[in-house]
């Protein structure tokens, strides 16, 4: 038996197929990956060190930079953690607004994923559509929070601004539009023979190992295990909203794609319900003077569900006006390193970025 020569291939950091500024050192034999090793640090900005220098409110602005494609769940996790430490209540209206924002963030991230997943599979039309339509969600964000990407909106105690006039109608209209467009997307992606061929049976995460490996979010639900922070440990207004958590068996890229396809519909459903049931009242429980705001000593662990899976925030206070330690557990922390290194061997080189996209690997939150 002739064994082909093993070659080292550096995928990234500059590579069009990579999901962010990271590098995967692949050992390949022919077209087949023999081993993979993730290299990080290209986006390390030392957030957690910087947070130790900033007070509780100043830290809030830095949070969204943790993960660029989906900043809101991180803000929300931090807010929840601070609220746990302080025992600060959140008005019901704020809970509903938070739910809407979190779901909008999920949708825009899903749309970005559509683009990435199809693009890495060589299908560019869908990317043009979904990423273009994503701008309508960003418009909603812009009207609500004042910025397209970095919203800095959900702070401890509630949200920063109330829903502006006419926003609710606009949100309904956008949801209607998106729902219509989704059929087109799905026809283009799931009915496409190329995608079917490329996605099925690729990048399999075994069901029995998934939890132990630390897999979360859609990749976990793609193995048939039903776990979602929104249901397990409800936060914001999720316990008052009726929605389903789709699961598919298989654990491959295809199953993960199907999970996402169904989840985006659920997100639209959640937003509609939250808009329907939006309570009145205050949207924000005042924090003290931000310069003198101290939080009681203790630690808190808060989780939220993002598109890529759960995002946890471990926050420690020593009673001063600055966090002692803020540690983010990004959904990709396991996905992008240990899980990736386990499932890549045996795959085709061409599928590496395909798998990266389906796992939702987001380097900035892995190295922070």
């Amino acid at each position: 038996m002739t064994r082909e020569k093993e070659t080292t291939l550096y995928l990234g950091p500059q590579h069009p197929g990579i999901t962010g500024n990271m590098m995967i050192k692949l050992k390949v034999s022919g077209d087949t990956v023999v081993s993979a090793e993730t290299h990080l640090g290209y986006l390390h900005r030392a957030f957690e060190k910087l947070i130790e220098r900033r007070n509780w409110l100043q830290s809030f602005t830095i949070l969204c930079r943790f993960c660029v494609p989906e900043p809101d769940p991180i803000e929300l996790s931090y807010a929840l953690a601070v609220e746990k430490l302080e025992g600060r209540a959140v008005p019901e209206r704020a809970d509903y607004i938070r739910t809407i924002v979190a779901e909008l963030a999920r949708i825009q991230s899903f749309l970005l994923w559509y683009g990435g997943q199809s693009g890495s599979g060589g299908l560019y039309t869908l990317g043009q559509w979904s990423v273009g339509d994503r701008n309508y969600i960003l418009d909603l964000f812009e009207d609500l929070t004042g910025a397209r990407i970095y919203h800095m909106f959900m702070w401890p105690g509630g949200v920063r601004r109330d829903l502006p006039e006419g926003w609710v109608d606009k949100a309904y209209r956008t949801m209607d539009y998106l729902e219509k467009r989704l059929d087109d997307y799905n026809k283009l992606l799931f009915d496409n023979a190329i995608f079917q061929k490329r996605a099925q049976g690729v990048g399999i995460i075994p069901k029995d190992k998934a939890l132990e490996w630390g897999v979360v979010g859609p990749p976990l639900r793609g193995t048939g295990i039903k776990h979602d922070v929104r249901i397990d440990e409800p936060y914001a207004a999720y316990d008052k909203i009726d929605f389903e958590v789709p699961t598919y068996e298989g654990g491959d890229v295809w199953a993960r794609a199907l999970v996402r396809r169904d989840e985006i519909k659920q997100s639209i459903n959640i937003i509609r319900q939250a808009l329907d049931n939006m309570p009145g009242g205050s949207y924000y429980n005042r924090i003290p003077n931000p310069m003198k705001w101290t939080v009681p000593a203790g630690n808190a662990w808060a989780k939220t569900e993002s598109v890529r899976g759960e995002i946890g925030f471990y926050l420690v206070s020593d009673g001063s006006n600055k966090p002692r330690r803020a540690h983010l557990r990004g959904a990709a922390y396991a996905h992008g390193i240990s899980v990736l290194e386990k499932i890549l061997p045996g795959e085709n080189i061409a599928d590496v970025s395909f798998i990266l996209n389906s796992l939702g690997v987001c380097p900035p939150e892995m190295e922070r």
Partner: protein
Amino acid sequence: MDLIHNLKEVFEIDAKIKNDFQIEVEAKKELVSSILLYLKNQHGFIHLDHMSCVDWIEDEVFELVYIVWNPNTKKTVLLHTKIDRNKPEMENIDTIWDQANTYEREFREMYGIEFPGLVAEREFILEGWTEMPPMRRDFDTKKYAEETYATRPGRENAEDVREKIIKRTGEEIPDFAKKYSRD
């Protein structure tokens, strides 16, 4: 609660309920791996959610936190342990959970904690780093940044409101009061 009872029975440690979903345990560092194994094998905490490290420089300890999760009962256990900051060493648990390897590499690099038996390149996130592990609290990131990186000139004439007013009024702030001045 069964779990709290059992932990008391087997390891003689007190667990306390933190909230509806979370249980908090503090243990000696020697016990950590056996507790984690016990939790994983006997109580279904098969998912390692998170590991964290806190630098308590005043007490000269690092606090390591292991957060494990049980998918059936939806309960989370936060296991805290403290290790000596001057000779930081902790048992490697990547045999229990593979992804612990990533955390441990990070702590090794960012805090300088050694995990005997950890197989991985020492350089993980940083490259060519020669200073002390940067996440340690005595590492001053601002000072380092100012010394290392050039910032753009043209911003030098910064004035301070309090100083400006002091200049106008001739107020003399005694030294003991300065710690309460706005920084």
